[in-house]
């Protein structure tokens, strides 16, 4: 890179490197004097007798400095000056008028024509040398600035190109989910190529979905660097059937490890269960989420936790709030870019703006996402957003129900273990702290024929496990969940009893064997609870689905019955055996 020219550099440049000077004067004697003088100073001189010649020489010789007589025949100095400046374009070629004119108007016209300065006749050697050196300094400075500017443009272009390329890699990791599901609508306007905001959505093996919205400190590349492992963790764990709390805990731990102390990620994790009509939400540092009810009023989901990447594992609280929903309810999530939108007078959109946009929507039937987006657009007008802005709306209504996970590459349904047995028992306090389902699912997925059925297998396992845990071990009455008050009580009591659980176990026994048609998986789930009266349970007695009484009763059992070949209860109801068949 060139070093910016200093005064001494420029002078020595004039001294060391001769300049190419173009002079134009119609007086032969004046021209000769000037030429001799400049040549003695060490410059290379081109001379012209009128404006036309001067312009032609300028074109062909590209001089560094031009000295022009103001008054010349054929084409005068003013016109020549205009032509030369036009031709020079961005290049700075100092243009000095040599003139005997002294009226202010005349001199002003010279400058307007593009002149940079004057030398008055008769010539003064000292003045000429000083002027030329001064203008050369300017010329060199301009040249240096132009080169640096071009260099900066080029570097910036390269940087942007690299970022666009990195962005494609990033997108491949971050957009493997189901953000395009029919029940999700979102808007993301990043401030630069890489947004500090992230938005992920993944179907869960057992149905339902997980959504994560996050906002890293800062934006651009550093934020994206943190977003990569976050995306990997989210999608990897979601696919394996981990629940929101496990994933948020893992993400936090990962971010604590990799982010510098002053960087963190505000985030919301949402676990939507469409079958059970419930939402679980963890909000750490993002603005309130809003549940816009199809019937009831607004429900706020405020931030109750520190952002991710601050607290170590021992202090971190991944507990999610459970909220009962109705089909058609819509959950709005946003990053603080939404609240920080400003209008022309500098006012912020704020929580008030959000509230105004979504209040009373249930009567109009308007989609809250549209209402909020147009609210923001109306408010900001032509103002540009000053921050990354992400808005996402999840509707509690998903026809696909059990969203089958993308099968991925299944090499062969014959390879892998076909005949195996395995027992896994969760005991004591681990029942309250550990979710064995992803692990159990993982074992089953080793059988390629079962891998295609990951959704069904997960559902079977989770129904068995949750039944054993909630009703068997914790003795929670499922009737509680049928009323809104009871629903809240159910989940707070569940958390309470989980924290105190001891002297209990849940034992899974698996047996898989190949069959002519494919294979059979037998799962026995036992728990140390009291059991239940399965002889008289309505779901187990009925053969027809319609005979089921209350809407929510025995939903889990019904699922098991539908998915499995057979289901049998043993002992006092705390030992369930199911057979699950799969076909080539």
């Amino acid at each position: 890179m060139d070093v910016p020219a200093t005064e001494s550099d420029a002078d020595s440049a004039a001294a060391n490197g001769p300049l190419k000077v173009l002079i134009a004067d119609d007086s032969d004697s004046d021209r000769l004097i000037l030429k001799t003088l400049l040549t003695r100073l060490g410059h290379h001189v081109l001379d012209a007798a009128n404006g036309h010649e001067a312009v032609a020489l300028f074109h062909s010789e590209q001089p560094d400095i031009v000295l022009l007589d103001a008054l010349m025949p054929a084409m005068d100095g003013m016109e020549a000056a205009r032509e030369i400046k036009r031709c020079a374009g961005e290049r700075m070629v100092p243009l000095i008028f040599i003139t005997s004119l002294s009226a202010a108007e005349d001199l002003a016209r010279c400058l307007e024509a593009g002149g940079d300065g004057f030398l008055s006749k008769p010539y003064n050697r000292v003045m000429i040398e000083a002027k030329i050196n001064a203008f050369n300094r300017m010329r060199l400075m301009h040249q240096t600035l132009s080169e640096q500017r071009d260099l900066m443009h080029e570097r910036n272009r390269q940087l942007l190109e690299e970022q666009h390329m990195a962005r494609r890699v990033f997108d491949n990791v971050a957009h493997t989910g189901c953000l395009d599901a029919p029940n999700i609508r979102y808007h993301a306007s990043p401030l630069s190529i890489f947004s500090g905001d992230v938005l992920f959505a993944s179907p869960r093996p057992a149905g339902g979905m997980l959504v994560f919205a996050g906002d890293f400190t800062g934006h651009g590349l550093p934020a994206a660097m943190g977003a990569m492992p976050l995306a990997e963790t989210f999608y990897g764990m979601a696919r394996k059937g981990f629940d929101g709390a496990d994933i948020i805990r893992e993400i936090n731990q990962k971010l604590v490890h990799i982010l510098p102390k002053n960087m963190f990620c505000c985030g919301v994790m949402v676990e939507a269960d469409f079958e059970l009509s419930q939402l679980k939400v963890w909000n750490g540092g993002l603005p309130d989420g809003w549940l816009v009810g199809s019937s009831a009023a607004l429900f706020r989901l405020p931030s109750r936790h520190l952002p991710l990447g601050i607290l170590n594992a021992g202090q971190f609280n991944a507990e999610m709030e459970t909220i009962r929903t109705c089909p058609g309810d819509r959950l709005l999530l946003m990053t603080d870019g939404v609240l920080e939108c400003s209008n022309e007078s500098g006012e912020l959109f704020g929580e008030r703006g959000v509230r105004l946009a979504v209040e009373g929507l249930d009567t109009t039937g308007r989609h809250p996402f549209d209402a909020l987006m147009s609210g923001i657009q109306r408010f900001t007008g032509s103002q540009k957003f000053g921050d990354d802005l992400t808005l996402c709306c999840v509707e509690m209504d998903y026809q696909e129900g059990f969203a089958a996970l993308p099968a991925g590459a299944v090499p062969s349904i014959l390879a892998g273990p076909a005949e195996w047995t395995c027992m896994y028992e969760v005991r004591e306090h681990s029942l309250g702290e550990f979710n064995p389902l992803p692990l159990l699912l993982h074992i089953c997925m080793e059988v390629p024929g079962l891998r295609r059925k990951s959704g069904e297998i997960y559902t079977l396992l989770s129904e068995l496990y949750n039944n054993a845990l909630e009703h068997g071990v914790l003795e929670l009455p499922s009737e509680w969940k049928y009323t809104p008050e009871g629903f809240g009580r159910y989940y707070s009591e569940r958390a309470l009893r989980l924290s105190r659980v001891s002297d209990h176990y849940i034992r899974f026994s698996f047996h898989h064997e190949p069959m002519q048609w494919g294979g059979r998986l037998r799962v026995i789930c036992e728990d140390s609870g009291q059991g239940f009266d399965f002889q008289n349970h309505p779901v187990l007695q009925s053969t027809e689905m319609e005979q089921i009484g209350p809407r929510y009763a025995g939903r889990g059992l019904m699922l098991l019955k539908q998915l499995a070949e057979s289901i049998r209860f043993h002992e006092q109801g705390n030992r369930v055996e199911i057979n699950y068949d799969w076909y080539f």
Partner: protein
Amino acid sequence: MPIHTRRGHDGKTLIIRIEGRFDFSTHQAFRDAYEHGGTGIHSYVVDLSEATYLDSSALGMLLLLRDYAGGDNATIAIENCNSDVRKILTISNFEQLFTIR
């Protein structure tokens, strides 16, 4: 955004007062304030009575101060926040890490 520091009456508390916007441009000055606060400091007070605004990079700086002052053992109070600043601290649940009054 000038930053002023002084010792509290007990001589063991460093009071850091921030005026105007508390954002990334304050980074170096804020760091200098606590790193050059002198010896024998047992606790810190961040006085935001003159602070008009606080953004996420300021939250990050507060975390840096906390780390410098001993992490979980740090004693740091954030004082006199206006309602906007208070709101941001609340959303981020920083009261779990700092005494906010």
